[in-house]
């Protein structure tokens, strides 16, 4: 089969690989119909995630058709069209039993600090991902769901990570009616977080970024006010000015490890890899939220330390919440929202690349060229 493979930082190509095999009785093999590139895939692509091995196939956002099932699989059949959450989880451990599907203890031997994710290095378990023609899906009775007939592949693939993660981030903010919510980052997750904040009754939503074309989408897709941080001298000061000098009630960091806006932080983290991430957006969130407010962290950071302004967080009495999203917990409600017309995830898709052109797709996404927001990867064998 054809699969995207990592060849070192900033280098990928398509190679022939063996079709994955059933390795556990509850495995399924899924033939991928459509995959997406996530902003967090860029952290791998840039060599930021420890233990990213040469030959690894990325891709934790994909939908496909069940090609083969293991002997103990009961809930799926060959031929089912399925969406697969980015989390791999067993459904039976201490954490899964409590709904913390992203923190499963039974699937990632390489680390206890993070659960397992498809195609996201060996630090998250060493599973090849879905930017390929076929992918191994462990715990097939637990993770994947059959896609309802009324839902298209492009909407479904956006519900495997970006959509639920944004929705989850708004929940972590504990938004109550009339709250002022500021979202850092107008990428796919930030856009979904901003849109979701309204579902939870926000009174104002402000999206911060430096890419004007993304801020334009924040206005049209997420109905948000926007703030281009390049146009102001001090983004925190501007946020205070916009919120009657109190600060926002809730701040959501939807940027993560490779934030721009501070050259020293960016170089030491994103380029020299001396920090687990460049916490510029996180520090802006801490300083831009009001005292007693909540900071929700969705942006991905690596496992090494980062220069976070924790003193300000302490002195302001903030609540800081974060996690990888337990995707499947969000699906029933999100499907309702899509069906009711409150949300159409595929509205943020801007580019579609065939798998053979995936190196170009990664470069275009990484360099933010051509107004790219969300690239999809089409698999010709599907």
């Amino acid at each position, binding site marked *: 089969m054809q699969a995207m493979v990592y060849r070192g930082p900033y280098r990928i190509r398509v190679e022939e690989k063996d079709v994955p095999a059933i390795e*556990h009785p509850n495995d399924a093999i899924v033939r991928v119909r459509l995959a997406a590139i996530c902003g967090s895939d860029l952290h791998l692509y840039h*060599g930021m995630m420890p233990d990213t091995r040469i030959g690894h196939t990325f891709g934790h956002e994909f939908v496909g058709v069940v090609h083969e099932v293991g002997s103990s699989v009961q809930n799926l059949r060959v031929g089912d069209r399925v969406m697969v959450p980015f989390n791999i989880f067993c459904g039976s451990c201490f954490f899964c039993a409590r*709904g913390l*599907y992203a923190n499963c203890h039974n699937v990632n031997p390489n680390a206890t600090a993070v659960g397992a994710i498809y195609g996201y290095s060996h630090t998250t378990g060493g599973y090849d991902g879905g930017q390929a023609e076929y992918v191994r899906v462990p715990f097939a*009775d637990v993770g994947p769901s059959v896609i309802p007939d009324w839902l298209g592949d492009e909407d479904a693939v956006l519900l495997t990570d970006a959509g639920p993660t944004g929705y989850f981030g708004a929940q972590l903010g504990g938004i109550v009616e009339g709250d002022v919510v500021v979202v850092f980052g107008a990428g796919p997750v930030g856009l979904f977080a901003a849109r979701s904040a309204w579902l*939870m009754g926000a009174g104002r939503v402000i999206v911060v970024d430096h890419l004007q074309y993304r801020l334009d989408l924040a206005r049209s897709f997420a109905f948000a006010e926007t703030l281009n941080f390049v146009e102001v001298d001090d983004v925190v000061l501007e946020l205070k000015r916009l919120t009657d000098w109190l600060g926002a009630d809730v701040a959501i960091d939807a940027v993560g490890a490779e934030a721009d806006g501070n*050259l020293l932080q*960016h170089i030491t983290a994103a380029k020299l*890899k001396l920090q687990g991430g460049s916490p510029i957006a996180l520090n802006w969130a801490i300083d831009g939220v009001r005292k007693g407010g909540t900071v929700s962290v969705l942006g991905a950071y690596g496992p090494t330390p980062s220069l976070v302004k924790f003193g300000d967080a302490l002195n302001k009495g903030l609540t800081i919440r974060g996690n990888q999203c337990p995707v499947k*917990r969000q699906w029933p409600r999100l499907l309702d929202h899509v069906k009711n017309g409150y949300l159409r995830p595929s509205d943020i898709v801007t580019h579609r690349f065939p798998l053979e052109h995936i190196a170009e797709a990664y470069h275009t996404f990484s360099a933010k060229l051509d107004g790219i927001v969300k690239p999809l990867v089409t698999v010709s064998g599907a």
Partner: protein
Amino acid sequence: MPYTKDKPSLPETSEQLRARIPGWGADLDPADRPSGSRERFDPGATGAHWDVPQQQPQRLPRERSIEHGRLTPVFGTAQPLHGPSGAVRRYAYRRFSEGRLAHWLLLVLGDRMETAEARMRSYVSRRPDNPLAETGLIGEFRSHGLRSRAGRVDRRHQLLDLVVVAGPTLLRIGIVTLLVRRVVRAVVKVARSTPDPSRPLSRGDSR
């Protein structure tokens, strides 16, 4: 403006927002949100029909974090450890917990070593690395590289990408060039200093 006990007024009322934004307030009750409470004990909701998952067979030695008491029942089998980089990674897993910075720095070192190993192997493989294709630079032309970057604050950061991407390759080329030059010079020097046995001795020569 005075600082008062009241929350600042909003530009729009809830009714106006509900009329303007599809679905506004659909999840108004925090307790009714899917992740409204962080933990929700409901083991029957997952679809798992086992108490303890069956163990996946281990066909090759599998590294694991020493913070785990056992090998997890299911694990990825992609890209098993190999070569010198594999030895470094294996040591990082065996010796240091995830709480130690050395664990992660050794894994990063393993990543860089494996990249170098892969480059070397590629030069003697049937499919050597093609930096132009693998970096997707064609996107610069098809996706309006220059125009897309106009006026952006991250331009200076993206210049650093060039150093990160091309730097190691240029460094390798430089080192190989220096080594080759040194070897060639040494060979030439030896050749010049060695008398030609076929040449007849002239006056003053000695053997």
